[in-house]
């Protein structure tokens, strides 16, 4: 995959002059997830991916909310902020708008992003702020010890739903498409190659990229995605999406067009999974170019300056109707 960096999500971000390695992206903090948590594999993949990106390490920022997944930034030796529950997309929006030279990531969980943070998420996507959002979907609240989340399957028995949940879950991909997302993808914690491939596309996409990552929580929702990882079943269930490549589901076959301006087809694909996981599309559902919020904001500033020059404080203060007293 070759990327024209000047057009890409990485435009204006300084490239590192020296080669970096995974070690450069590993912080000195001990990783504290439960043994076997899918978060480890994702961390590993990201630490492996970042050196290849080639950006200056100090120009990368990870912003997270609250949840097990949101501990992510602590383990990367970049800049990072572990903020408050659900608000990372808002904080990242301010940061990315103010600083085009920063490569801004958001790390969030299904509760953080879709429950308390749902509004910020959908607004970031419609604005198309230049962010890469990693949504760790383990279909459970991990950090608070096992309540159901907005992606938990109906009827789920958890600490807060001893008789089974009666909520109908969100399909994060459908929701994102309904919210005008310009880049939407899904991948698996366990499939490092695929995860990396999607990361690469997401981070170089200019605009908001949402990546839903199915992530196993061995403690509170173990095996939620096992059928997708099981050697025997996985390939029968996974529907791999690649732009321009053929997709086959049952007796339907089509060429995947992730670049379609109209999100309807992507939406339809998002409905392939009827919650039985018989057909679970992974890969990039949609990837279209649309002006980003932050670029346009900066463009307006630049234009105003080009038209009328830098603001002058004294002139501003005196305005048009001032008078003198001797």
């Amino acid at each position, binding site marked *: 995959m070759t990327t024209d960096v000047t057009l890409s999500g990485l435009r204006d971000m300084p490239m590192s002059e020296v080669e970096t390695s995974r070690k450069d992206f590993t912080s000195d903090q001990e990783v504290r997830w439960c043994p076997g948590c899918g978060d480890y594999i994702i961390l590993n993949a990201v630490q492996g991916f970042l050196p290849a990106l080639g950006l200056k390490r100090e120009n990368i920022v990870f912003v997270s909310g609250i949840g097990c997944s949101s501990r992510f930034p602590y383990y990367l030796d970049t800049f990072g902020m572990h*903020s408050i529950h659900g608000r990372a997309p808002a904080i990242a929006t301010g940061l990315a708008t103010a600083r085009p030279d920063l490569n801004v990531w958001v790390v969030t969980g299904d509760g953080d992003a879709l429950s308390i943070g749902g509004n910020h998420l959908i607004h970031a996507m419609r604005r198309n702020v230049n962010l890469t959002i990693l949504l760790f979907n383990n279909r459970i609240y991990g950090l608070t010890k096992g309540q159901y989340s907005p992606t938990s399957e109906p009827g789920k028995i958890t600490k807060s739903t001893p008789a089974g949940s009666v909520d109908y879950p969100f399909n994060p991909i459908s929701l994102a498409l309904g919210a005008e997302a310009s880049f939407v993808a899904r991948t698996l914690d366990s499939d490092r190659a695929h995860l990396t491939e999607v990361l690469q596309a997401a981070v170089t996409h200019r605009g908001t990229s949402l990546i839903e990552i199915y992530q196993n929580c061995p403690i509170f929702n173990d095996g939620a995605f096992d059928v997708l990882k099981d050697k025997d079943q996985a390939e029968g269930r996974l529907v791999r999406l690649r732009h321009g490549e053929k997709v086959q589901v049952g007796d339907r076959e089509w060429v995947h067009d992730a670049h379609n301006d109209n999100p309807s087809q992507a939406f339809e694909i998002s409905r392939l999974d009827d919650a039985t996981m018989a057909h679970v599309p992974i890969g990039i559902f949609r990837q279209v170019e649309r002006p980003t919020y932050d670029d346009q904001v900066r463009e307006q500033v630049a234009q105003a300056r080009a038209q009328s020059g830098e603001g002058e404080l004294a002139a501003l203060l005196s305005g048009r109707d001032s*008078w003198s007293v001797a």
Partner: protein
Amino acid sequence: MWPICHNLRRRLESTEAIMRPQEMGSVAKQVQQLDQVVIRFAGDSGDGMQLTGDRFTQETASFGNDLSTLPNFPAEIRAPAGTLPGVSSFQLHFADHDILTPGDTPHVLVAMNPAALRANVADLEAGATIIVDTHDFTGRNLTRAGYAENPLEDGSLDRFHVHAFDLTGLTVASVKQFGLSRKDAARAKNMFSLGMLSWLYGRPVDSTRSFLEQRFANAPDIRDANLAAFNAGWNFGETTEGFAVSYQIKPAPMRSGRYRNITGNLALSYGLVAASVRSGLPLFLGAYPITPASDILHELSKHKRFGVVTFQAEDEIAGIGAALGASYGGSLGVTTTSGPGISLKSETVGLAVSLELPLVVVDVQRGGPSTGLPTKTEQADLLQAMFGRNGEAPVAIVAPQSPGDCFDAALEAARIAVTYRTPVLLLSDGYLANGSEPWLLPDVETLATIEPNFADKPNHETETGDHSFWPYQRDPQTLARAWAIPGTPGLEHRIGGLEKADGHGNISYEPANHDLMVRTRQAKIDRIADTIPALEVDDPHGDAAMLILGWGSTYGPIGSACRRLRQQGMQVAQAHLRHLNPFPSNLGEVLRAYDTVVVPEMNLGQLSLLVRAKYLVDVVSYNQVRGQPFSASELEDVFTTTLKEMHS
């Protein structure tokens, strides 16, 4: 007759007949000197009373009077025409001397319809003047305003000097030539009235003419009609026999310099721009619209040339979140809102306290609780500003005392925020926001500079001699932490809302560390007192026994009331707090120096509570929570009574 019209605490200076060149057959009229006038323009929300008031204010300002204004609009956008809830008004107080408030009771009421008359007449004292547009004083309109009888005819206005004209009819006649619809023609009546009043008080009219030319540049019909109506109003004033005299209010002696008239929201916006210029940090505003703060968002969105970015967020939480994100990136992050928005922002303010990042949080207070009285003023968010967050989460609090002072207060808030890496709550209110006064332009070169002092190199040496960056290493003086923004090579680090270890800032659950950090964050805020001036007391003879302590927008009425007491030979001291947290270091001393301390507030005693708790001084609270500023005469009474009681 006229002297009575302006009868409230006012000296008649001289009455002289001035002959003017005859225009349109006008007759020469007497010109009478006044020292001050309070006019209130009132009409339907759609009648353009705010614009009329603004223009009259502008004319008055450029004439050189001191002035103070008080707009008052309904919560509804445009309640049904002719109803009481739809009445919008604008009060202007102008004088040949230094004044502090928009005036207690109007000397002159301009009422554009029955509802405007009915909604405002109770505020007038006997002898006041009423100028009324008779056009709508007809059956249905009277009923809609709640009048059983026509007040212009039933004698109920006998105590007043009533000038009744069909202003609408006159306006329509005066713009006939432009072929506007009757409705559009009638809409120019505010300009007709403005012209008339401008004549009556000898206001310079050029600025209004050029304003109209610019404003309606794209609609020549409307422009010409408005100009014609304005001129016709002026001429009508001069011509009509209804007015026997016109008035002169000499310019007020003011410190020399360049002035402009300014509202609080505008001054606050400019203060933020100035803070950006003087700190070198780009200004980032994250805001969600809310009355009466929205105008700051509107204003700042115009100043892209200053690199100002305004982000209209999806809600208040996103607004402050984005501002904090921008701050983290090295912008001057600001969020503006009113009371309910502060409630929503509390959790994020707490995060900013924990992250120790600069953030200016502007609360333009309005009537509460809950949605309350959105267009009315109040100062009941002080304790929310102090305490409205979980845990021990101290912030600095600053408040402006007059519209123009919002500029300085904003600059000071930004200075504290950046210097101490802390959120600062800036408490304006609806009265300051929309009220205006002449403002002496500051010399921009001498404005305080603000030093971000970004960290750019490691600040810690480990035992092994390695150099690393400790984000919670502190300046020994200010206790401000080291602030390295993303993009600074070698200074990569992570911060968050969990408790962090002193120094290196990694997560720490250590009991002793938590206690230390809680106390350190508090100590840092307390240290701000080292860089703020001692509280000044205005005690002309130095022998008052009673001190009036205030904060925020009550400065005007408190000051006026104090002047009145002093004019009557009573001793009273006045002190007004710019800093609500921390207090100036000498506050305790000041309070203890007086036998009685009165604290007037537009709440149930919030500053009182803070000073009582801190200094154990039994201050006297005086409270009104009416959605309106104090009137000077009300405070005059209270202070006088308190003084008398002290001596009895």
